[in-house]
């Protein structure tokens, strides 16, 4: 059955490996993936430990439906205490690793301690072995995967690994699988590096028995038809997430030159340019969209490079944020961060911040060792990627992430650093969009667009449709507005998307198949049916919401245990003090209103059942069964 995958506890210090079944009761409480990971993290991690010390706990998992007949059920999740923020570290990626992990018999790996020398985990058909990896240390993320596959003589081995950045403990080092997929955020790659863990390799041939295979197949066909009929999917199939740039840059909703502008005027880096380089598209396991391009760079120092992507985030990182208007710079930057194992978003944001500091004289040629960190200097941007990955000069400071870099550069640099909870913001400008601003201010893993972003708020949907979406599966009778510049009803939208994204992160389904960028995609009814047909578990849409609520609240409890307070759910002053200078009328001359923003946070806390300080109320904990955590049931 689909529920018989195990949990493994691996101690890298002692070499001990233990396995255990996952009780159905725990599935009903947390499903799997991100949900069970936060339970395990909260229960196995001592508060206050050094995220880069052996006491940190690393979780590697597959979503509950990964490898089943649920569409796009490809997502794996990794968690730890974040070395970037000090709060919950959590990252999620597609590809083929998660299904393979489940075919190898496991859903969750709990990795503790630190190996004496580099190792990797070899997980195969119910067995886990710790393999020597000194020969892999120093290899990039592409080579590492190839070398492991060669060792086992099996091209179907799937690998999650780190690159140079993870080995050198860059605090925003990512984890990678395949040519494209990255678990980018919160620095999980540095946690792996701190444990001398170069990779986790998996190969499995243990079938996942689908509970109702005929119904599951039929339902999946319905879902694929539904997804592929949307305009969103048809555009994604052609150009991937890069399509978002067309609307956001046109409107004036992007960060340009760090945070000085909200539009790249004359921008020539639209998604359509990928047609000149693309040799086709690929998808993750079970996906009908295939949103990533395979491309070859034609000219310049990176001519001949073959890579996959880029995403919208790399357009920002190596385009708008750094003032570059050259599509090949985006392709090259995307390749470099993937090769070294760096979070593209954080890398671009840190470089853009350094460029503004250079412009203002806070950083000088002496600091940059002569590198001209000027807006639009493509070569300098790509050189900084190298320096960050190798921790060279200024790159070593930026590799520490926003808050530690501020400490080293000086307080005068702080106002220009666009971050929340120590993690940089996406290259979007949320000053005209209170809902999106609330999402990044309150997201549990630090500023982030994949935890709660109500992106469909930008579509000016009719209020009747908004009520239908946001009034279910839990009732909501409050206001909702089609106008994305208002503050009305936005806390509910943020809360709803938190629950939706948490649910699919537990299930291992891609967010692009949910009500994220299209109102016509999957929601809680579909999640409930997918769980039933594939696993036999009867979990109503309301119960899916409750599970998501439980997991999200536990993430909140984890953060509070690590010192989080209401003041951390806030944005830097520039959001409130500097009006947007460019864009369409709806986005121009906009700042966030502090008082209204505070009211939104109050409302958001109330919707969650948290008090005015953002602490879950006792009755909330009791309702969710969290009043006795840590309960040590796994």
């Amino acid at each position: 059955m689909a529920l018989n995958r195990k949990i493994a506890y691996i101690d890298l210090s002692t070499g001990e490996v233990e396995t255990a079944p996952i009780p159905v009761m725990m599935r009903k409480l947390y499903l799997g993936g991100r949900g069970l990971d936060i339970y395990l993290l909260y229960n196995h991690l001592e508060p206050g430990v050094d995220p880069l010390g052996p006491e940190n706990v690393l979780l590697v998992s597959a979503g509950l439906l990964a490898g089943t007949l649920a569409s796009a059920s490809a997502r794996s999740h990794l968690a730890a205490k974040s070395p970037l923020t000090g709060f919950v570290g959590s990252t999620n990626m597609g590809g083929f690793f998660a299904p393979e992990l489940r075919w190898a018999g496991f859903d969750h790996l709990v990795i503790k301690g630190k190996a004496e020398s580099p190792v990797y985990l070899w997980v195969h058909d119910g067995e886990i072995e710790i393999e020597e990896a000194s020969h892999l240390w120093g290899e990039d993320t592409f080579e590492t995967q190839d070398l492991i596959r060669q060792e086992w003589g099996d091209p179907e081995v799937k690998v999650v690994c780190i690159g140079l950045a993870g080995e050198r403990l860059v605090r925003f080092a990512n984890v990678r699988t395949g040519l494209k997929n990255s678990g980018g955020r919160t620095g999980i790659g540095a946690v792996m590096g701190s444990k001398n863990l170069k990779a986790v390799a998996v190969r499995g041939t243990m079938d996942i028995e689908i509970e109702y295979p005929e119904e599951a197949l039929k339902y999946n066909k319905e879902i694929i038809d539904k997804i592929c009929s949307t305009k969103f999917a048809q555009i994604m199939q052609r150009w991937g997430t890069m399509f978002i740039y067309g609307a956001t840059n046109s409107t004036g909703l992007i960060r340009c030159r760090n945070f000085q502008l909200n539009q790249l005027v004359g921008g020539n880096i639209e998604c359509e340019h990928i047609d000149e380089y693309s040799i086709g598209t690929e998808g993750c396991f079970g996906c009908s969209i295939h949103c990533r391009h395979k491309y070859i760079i034609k000219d310049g120092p990176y001519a001949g490079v073959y890579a996959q992507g880029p995403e919208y985030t790399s357009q920002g990182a190596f385009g708008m944020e750094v003032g570059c208007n050259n599509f090949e710079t985006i392709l090259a930057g995307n390749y470099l961060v993937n090769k070294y194992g760096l979070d593209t978003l954080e890398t671009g944001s840190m470089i853009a911040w350094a460029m503004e500091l250079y412009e203002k004289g806070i950083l000088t040629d002496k600091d940059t060792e002569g590198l001209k960190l000027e807006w639009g200097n493509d070569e300098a941007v790509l050189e900084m990627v190298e320096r960050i990955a190798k921790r060279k000069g200024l790159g070593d400071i930026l590799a520490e992430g926003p808050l530690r870099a501020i400490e080293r550069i000086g307080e005068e640099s702080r106002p220009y650093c666009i971050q929340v909870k120590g993690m940089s913001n996406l290259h979007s400008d949320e000053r005209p969009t209170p809902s999106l601003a609330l999402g990044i201010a309150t997201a549990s893993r630090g500023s982030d667009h994949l935890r709660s972003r109500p992106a469909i708020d930008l579509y000016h949907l009719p209020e009747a449709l908004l009520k239908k979406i946001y009034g279910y599966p839990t009732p909501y009778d409050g206001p909702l507005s089609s106008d994305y510049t208002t503050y009305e009803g936005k806390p509910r939208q943020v809360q709803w998307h938190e629950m939706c994204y948490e649910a699919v992160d537990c299930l291992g389904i891609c967010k692009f198949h949910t009500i994220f960028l299209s109102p016509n995609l999957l929601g809680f009814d579909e999640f409930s049916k997918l769980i039933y047909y594939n696993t036999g578990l009867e979990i109503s849409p309301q119960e899916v919401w409750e599970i998501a609520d439980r997991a999200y609240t536990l993430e909140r409890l984890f953060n509070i245990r690590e010192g989080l307070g209401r003041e951390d759910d806030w944005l830097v002053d520039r959001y409130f003090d500097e009006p947007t200078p460019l864009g369409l009328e709806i986005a121009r001359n906009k700042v966030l209103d502090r008082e209204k923003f505070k009211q939104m946070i109050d409302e958001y806390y109330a919707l969650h059942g948290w008090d005015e300080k953002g602490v879950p109320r006792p009755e909330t904990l009791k309702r969710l069964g969290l009043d006795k955590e840590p309960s040590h049931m796994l």
Partner: protein
Amino acid sequence: MKETKKGKEGLGKVRCLNCFERFEVAPRAEIATCPSCGWEWRISWPNPKLAKIRGPVWEAWEKLQTRGE
């Protein structure tokens, strides 16, 4: 394409990012002007039946921004 009260949803129609009105774009057109507010947009085609706004006509941008004020 899904049939709606407005006709075949998405067939060569885009939503103006300035005024949010939907308007029809001539097949294979690369530039279109919103009949409601007059903003000019560059258009691309993910497939022959589906139009998408690629970006503003930057040459007209300054003039239009000034008018917007």
